[in-house]
């Protein structure tokens, strides 16, 4: 037993429970707090399941997707985003992005599992799903494709992670590629679940599938920077020059993606204001009930503040990046909420001008719903903190693909390339301009 443990620890960087025992009391308390929260969440969720969701949930006939679906969307968007951003490196060979691969893939799996935890408490008969998704598939349903593709995505990501641990780079690259393709297909289908609903003008159209992909990449960039800089707080040793370079590169990409999403948002608002069907919802976001969500969280915390801080950080002030991306994660959560709920606020009979459908429909998340959402989110946090310790900060000397003709520079930790007839030393000198 111990023999094989040593082996795994060498090959995978798996340090097991011992690493947890060595963790500081504060760290363990934090993990304990998340474990308790997850436990509380799951018990409240199960209580709701037993009493019947319609007694305890805030969702209604008109607004049938509430905070649970928003949280689910948040999780799977982040998961897909992590996969997209990390694949720039270890699938497409963008060298600067390589060092983040292991942590990103690990977190991508965890976010996906967290999402499944949440959706478990939203779907009324989750056990039937396992059966009838298989024996009675509806191939024209986006929902079916979304579920099935995300299932496949999770499998690919787990296999990919295994090969990353095993340092079998060609297979991990192949799996990473499949994972990416399936993940993007799944994700655009999630957009289409919303975008192909008749009578929901706020969602209807090709906007959402496209927006979701860009938005996912943005969330992925944000999440990987957050978890990496937080890991650096936990254990400063994980930052070598390669990691620093990776953070810097991701920071640039994320800045670009935030700007893209800003454009998306601006045009959503502007076109929505002049659209007869949407203006009521848009006004609720801009000046009505959802104005705080929209301006304070989605716009300020989700985009403006992180954009400012990330630009200021120049990609190397890790404290600043950590705060920027941490707050941005909160903002992104509201971004998802602001898509899911407002799309249902207007009754389908509004255009008929009937008394029953004049006003926008209200929704307030109930205690049970919030707890069930917190269940999934705390599972993610718990797994993250456990992973950082048990997997040794996702570090091994080299867990990334080293391209042919390249080698890891012993000086800076980056990948260098040798030219014809050059020795490693010559190449290093050339790269570091010490001649």
């Amino acid at each position, binding site marked *: 037993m111990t023999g094989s443990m040593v082996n795994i620890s060498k090959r995978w960087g798996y340090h097991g429970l011992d690493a947890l025992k060595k963790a500081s009391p504060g760290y363990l308390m934090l993990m304990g707090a998340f474990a308790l929260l997850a436990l509380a969440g799951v018990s409240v969720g199960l209580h709701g399941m037993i009493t019947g969701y*319609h007694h305890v949930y805030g969702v209604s006939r008109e607004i*049938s*997707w509430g905070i649970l679906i928003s949280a689910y969307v948040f999780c799977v968007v982040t998961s897909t985003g992590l996969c997209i951003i990390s694949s720039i490196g270890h699938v497409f060979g963008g060298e600067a992005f390589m060092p983040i691969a292991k942590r990103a893939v690990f977190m991508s799996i965890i976010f996906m599992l967290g999402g499944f935890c949440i959706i478990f408490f939203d779907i009324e008969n989750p056990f039937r799903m396992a059966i*009838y998704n298989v024996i009675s*598939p509806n191939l024209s349903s986006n*929902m079916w494709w979304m579920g099935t593709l995300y299932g496949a995505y999770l499998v690919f990501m787990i296999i990919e992670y295994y090969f990353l641990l095993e340092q079998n780079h060609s297979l991990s690259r192949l799996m990473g590629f499949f994972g990416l393709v399936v993940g993007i297909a799944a994700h655009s289908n999630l957009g289409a679940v919303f975008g192909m*609903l008749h009578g929901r003008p706020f969602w209807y159209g090709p906007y959402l599938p496209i927006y979701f992909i860009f938005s996912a990449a943005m969330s992925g960039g944000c999440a990987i920077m957050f978890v990496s800089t937080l890991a650096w707080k936990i254990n400063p040793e994980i930052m070598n020059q390669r990691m620093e370079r990776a953070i810097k590169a991701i920071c640039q990409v994320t800045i670009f993606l935030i700007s893209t999403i800003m454009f998306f948002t601006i045009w959503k608002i502007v076109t929505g204001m002049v659209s007869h069907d949407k203006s009521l919802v848009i006004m609720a976001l801009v000046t009505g009930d959802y104005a705080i969500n929209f301006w304070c969280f989605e716009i300020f915390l989700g985009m403006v503040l992180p954009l400012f801080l990330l630009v200021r950080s120049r990609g190397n002030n890790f404290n600043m990046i950590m705060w920027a991306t941490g707050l941005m994660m909160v903002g992104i959560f509201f971004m998802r909420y602001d898509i899911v709920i407002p799309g249902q606020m207007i009754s389908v009979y509004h*255009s*008929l001008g009937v*008394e029953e459908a004049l006003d926008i429909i209200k929704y307030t998340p109930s205690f049970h719903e919030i707890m069930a959402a917190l269940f999934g989110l705390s599972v993610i946090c718990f797994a993250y903190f456990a992973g950082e310790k048990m997997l040794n900060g996702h570090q091994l000397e080299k867990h990334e693909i080293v391209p042919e003709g390249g080698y890891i520079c012993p000086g800076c930790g980056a990948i260098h390339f040798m030219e014809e007839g050059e020795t490693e030393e010559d190449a290093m000198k050339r790269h570091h301009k010490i001649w």
Partner: protein
Amino acid sequence: MNFPKIDLNKLKNEGTESVTVKERRNFLKLGFAITGVYASGKILSLSSVLNDVAYASGGTDFVEKYPYNPHYSMVIRQSLCIDCEKCVEACNKTNHVPEYGYRTRILTRKYQGQLDKKVEFIPVLCNHCNDAPCVRACPTKATYKDPVTGIVRMESKKCIGCKTCMLACPYDARYFSAERHAIDKCDFCWEERLSKGETQTGCSSACPTGARTFGNLTDPENIVFKLVHQSEESVWVLRPEDGTKPNIFYMKGNMVSVDNILKGQKFIYSDPAKS
């Protein structure tokens, strides 16, 4: 029978625009085979083209073919509805609808005229759409279009409760029933009445004014066929822009015209089935 004082002729028609004879001819010249309804000069509900049932060779008119037989449908004569909600009661009782849900409801529309106020009641229910968005959206085929009758039904044991169909339905016709552990919706009383040999739904037989008429659209002798195929009054559907091809038709329900349509047959408003 007392009816509220409503100026029938001044009520706004929210349906499709009128189509002139010329436009109608032009339309037919396109050579599209139409399975759907062409009523009172208004094209209401067209299904996909290139069906082998084409217009009659004479060229001035076309043969309609409905996709189902019997093709169940309901025609709602809106101005006859007095909001007594007897239909809703009957529906709840027949189909054991829990108190937090409904399969059908009556909407109220108010007009502020220059001299008076006018109220109009609009019964709504599942439209049993020919192109049903709920059926497309359901991941497990738990909701499906009955291949014979065209009724959109539920196979409850397959429903996973994802609620996608509730959002996909542009008529708010679905709710989740905790008792059934599945979505519940109007099935034209198939399970409780039609499959047991009845010819009317609970709501249509309970309606004291004949606002709801239920029947088979493929049968030229049937009341719904006659109401849809008359040319005195306009007939419309709700939300035609969604392209769902609904099977619930609305008309104002001007009595004189109805009598004309029925060509002198005495129409007993309390029991449309016996017309």
